[in-house]
């Protein structure tokens, strides 16, 4: 009986989700199946509503294996961005919603997503410090340089000059989205947080095969 309810519940969920996301119903179903495969022992938790939840390590595994992501900090941030209710786990809905933006989001959606990822302290601004954090590994350290951080600092200034349209020394979402609109290459300005095109194609291929 519980099994049947769960099935019914899942069907309903799938219906809802395919309306709200960029996926078709079979795709949603297949994504949900995939989710269950990743989190097989979800039933142990007992709750029907939060029957299956993915934790950080599992999620990072998925990002790493399916999307070739390697940057720990960014993967953590992506995990946070997926976890919209900030309960420390990614549940089914969050999973499908997240992937919808991740794989097929509109420019606006993806801009919002990236901004959230880069806004480390979630204060709705990307500050100089945050940029520094994000970019600190982006340059090869030259042993000859006196101040190894100078290049990074300069890079932060360059980015600010390019993106801080209201000149307040930090990036608001407004700044960010305007800058991305005029230069789409800046979407992932501070590091890769969206799947590369071929990783996306590969991933979409795996789950549409299920369908």
């Amino acid at each position, binding site marked *: 009986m519980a099994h049947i309810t769960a099935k019914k519940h899942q069907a309903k969920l799938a219906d809802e989700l395919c309306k709200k996301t960029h996926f078709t119903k079979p795709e949603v179903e297949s994504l949900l199946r995939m989710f269950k495969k990743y989190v097989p022992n979800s039933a142990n938790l007992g709750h029907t509503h939060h029957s299956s939840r993915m934790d950080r390590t599992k999620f990072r595994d998925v990002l790493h294996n399916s999307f070739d992501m390697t940057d720990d900090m960014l993967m953590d941030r992506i995990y946070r961005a997926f976890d919209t209710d900030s309960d420390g786990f990614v549940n089914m809905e969050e999973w499908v919603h997240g992937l919808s933006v991740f794989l097929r989001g509109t420019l606006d959606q993806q801009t919002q997503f990236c901004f959230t990822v880069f806004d480390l302290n979630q204060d709705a601004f990307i500050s100089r410090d945050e940029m520094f954090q994000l970019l600190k590994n*982006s*340059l090869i350290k030259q042993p000859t340089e006196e101040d190894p951080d100078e*290049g990074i600092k300069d890079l932060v200034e*360059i980015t600010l000059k390019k993106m801080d349209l209201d000149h307040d020394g930090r990036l608001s979402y407004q700044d960010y989205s305007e800058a991305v609109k005029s230069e789409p*290459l*800046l979407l*992932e300005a501070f590091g*890769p947080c969206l799947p*590369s*095109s071929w990783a996306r194609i590969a991933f979409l291929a795996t789950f549409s095969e299920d369908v």
Partner: protein
Amino acid sequence: MLKNLNRGDDMVSTETIGKENTPCIRLHKDSDGLYKMSVQTVAAIVQVLNIARDRRLDETRACLEANPDPTAVIAGDRFSSVKGEDLSTYRYMQEIMKEGDSEEDIEQKRITLKLVMHIQKEDIDLLQSYAEAISGTSRPTPVTVEGDVALIKEFCGEDEDVHVLEDISFTTDHKFENHCRSPPWRQILGDIAYIEVKPHDEDPFFITASTTGYFVNKGWVKEKCDLDYEPAGEVNSNLVELLKTKSAKFAELIVRQPLESRKQQKAASDVTMIESRKDDANANEAEREKEREMRRKEDEEQRNKGRKETKKHLEPTLKWIEESPKADKKKKVVAKADAETKGSEAIKPRRPLASRGKSKTPYQEEDSFSESSSESEEEEEVLERRQDAGSDLPSDYWQIQKLVKYLKGGNQTATIIALCAMRDFNLNQETIQLAIRDVGGLEVLINLLDTEDIKCKIGALNILKYISKNAQIRKAIADLGGLQTMVKILRDPNKQLKALSAETIANVAKFRRARRTVRQHGGIRKLVGLLDCAPLSTASTPEHEMDVEVARCGALALWSCSKSTKNKQAMRKAGAIPLLARLLKSTHESMLVPVVGTLQECASEPSYRLAIRTEGMIEDLVTNLKSENAELQMHCASAIFKCAEEKETRDLVKQYGGLYPLVNLLNNVDNKELLAAATGAIWKCAISAENVQKFQELKAIDLLVNLLNDQPEEVLVNVVGALGECAKDPPNRAQIRKAGGISPLVHLLTGTNQALLINVTRAVGQCAEEPDNMAIIDRLDGVRLLWSLLKNQNVEVQASAAWAICPCIENAKDAGEMVRSFVGGLELIVSLLKSEEQEVLASVCAAIANIAKDEENLAVITDHGVVPMLAKLTNTTDDKLRRHLAEAIARCCSWGNNRVSFGNERAVAPLVHYLKSKDKHVHRSTARALFQLSKDPDNCITMHEAGVVKPLMEMVGSEDTVLQEAAAGCISNIRRLALANEKAKYS
């Protein structure tokens, strides 16, 4: 290093003293104030050479140069170099064996002999190894050829990305007994076999393997069903190297093949040959090294001995010493020749007929030049590196340097940021463009194109796209191999990337070498492929817009590439024409400009002209003539200009109503390029008489005449050309006069632009057909100007001027007097009969026919020897020349005993043969000439013998009364002579 020195005023020497009391090493000043060093022993030489260190070789060479015959110095004069058989050693030996000398003497001689033998042995060894090295550079033999081909065949196949060639094979399977495959009569010339090569990226071609090496021959000649054995390229001793130069794909792939390993596995049987080839280079090098070493040693020895035993004699032949510098020299000469050919390639001589700048006269260009636009050449010349502003580099420079540093040393994220920041500079500004290059940015940007990251590629192309507008950057991009990578990107699934890449190629491919690179790497096919992605419907979704953008960029790139003839052919083969035809239906100006631009560039090729007509593109071109966009109008007009060489096209232009918009374009007085294209189109369209009618209705004449003043030459050429065509219609001649066109036309006769002069003379000639016009021309001294153009260097101008003179003489009052007034004029025109151009000869004959109407002038030209000169021309087969030549002869007969002279000069019999010609005009003038000539009895006999009667009889039946009369007159003269003859017999 040297101890115990004695110092004098002008010399320093060691204390150790050699035999004849000379110091072993002596440095002394000679009369010229230069220091010279002389040495006496081997030890001394070793010391000196040690001091010289790195310059040891130079020192040795200097020593050799100072002692041109070292053996003679060492061993005495009897061993000095002589030509022919050298028996000195033997004689010396005998001398020793003979008794008589003192013990000491003999001992001394033995040592010398031993030394000489050593030197000779060394000499022979060296020669031998050198000979081996030379023969190692292996001329091909039938066996090596077989081996080479079999080896390369291993790597052939269908797959473009793996196999180096599609196929390589011998043209024939038959082998002669000596293993050659070429026919015996070619074997005599050294040919071994012929190899057919099918590369992936080029047309198939044929290679001759001959004993001198491999070279590409001129390929298969269908008519002969045989090869054209003439070499079409350089001889290369190595088949692989030759193929590398011919096919970029081959060069790219062959290095990836595990050639060495497979070579050994496979060719166990002919190991020796392959081994020797493989090690060639090394062997050569080693050999040379060895040789140098030996030479050094020997020199030392020789010099030493020379000082010690100046009276003793020995001698090795010194051939090898001569050999090596010669070989070197040869190499240098080759290198130099290479450099020269390269140089001459870069700076091609301007074509003789060229008008300045961008001439738009199509036919001249396609004939004399592979480039259809002259702009490309100019660009290639603009390559001197601009001096950097050295002292005050702008702050931008340092900014850019910093960004490039981040590009180099940053990960993908930093790279993107740096690329985006770079875009904020004004990339159209030259200082910025050069700054990027000077700090090494181009290398990095091009390297980025090779990465996997799409964003980096897009970012890099975004910058390259702008900076490649600079000619120097273009060249640098090509030098860095950027084109190859960009061509590869054209296959990328990402449309934005494709479009950017194509757009950048469009900028870079503005010079010849770049265009060739694009073609050789299969770029043309890929670019043509881009044209295909645009749907016909007007773009509405972003997806569609992107497709259209890709097609537009593809068209832009093709436009740049289409300036090379070979690229035009490659485009046609890749199926560009129907795609262009489809894009021509587009409504976007941004699309139409490159499409029409490409078409007008390609229209210099007859195949394209045909396709443009048959694919229905004329209609679209005419439609776009009415566009608002001046550039588009210009290209359309230009395309019509080039296409309207053909009558069908001209008719189509008229049919689609293109003449009106063309005439309308004449009102854009300020846009010279547009004007040049429009007038050009009108000129070519006016070749059809119906079109001239239409132009008349549209009052084009007045507009054209207005354009005769204050226009650049490229416009004038076309305007005058158009007027010349229009003036073929008599009413237009009057119209030109009424519009005041005669005077400016005559003034243009004083110009220097040859294309213009050809057209002006033609136009003036047409106008002179009308007596009223002629009066004006005469008043303006136009005939004298025409006459002076007979002296022009250009044969076309000469011919055209001579043609124009004909109607002038016909229609001028007192023409005879006028002609006589030109000092040296008659002599000049007669002397032109020596020209080698048929057209000049024909025109001059026509002019002479007119001049000869005046008896006095006829007398003058007879004095200048016109008769033998005309007679000499009679053997021609050119109908046009025959016609005017016969006319001239007919006219010249009426003076003195010219008739007899023509007979003496053997002009009569060839004339009779003219009657067999199919041209009626030739018949008419020939009959007239024969009639005139037949008034001399001897000529009658000659004619009769040549069988004149039968054809003349037929011509009496002609409908042409002039011909009838002349033929009849001639027959009656012959008949009369026969009667007189008979009468004489009987009486």
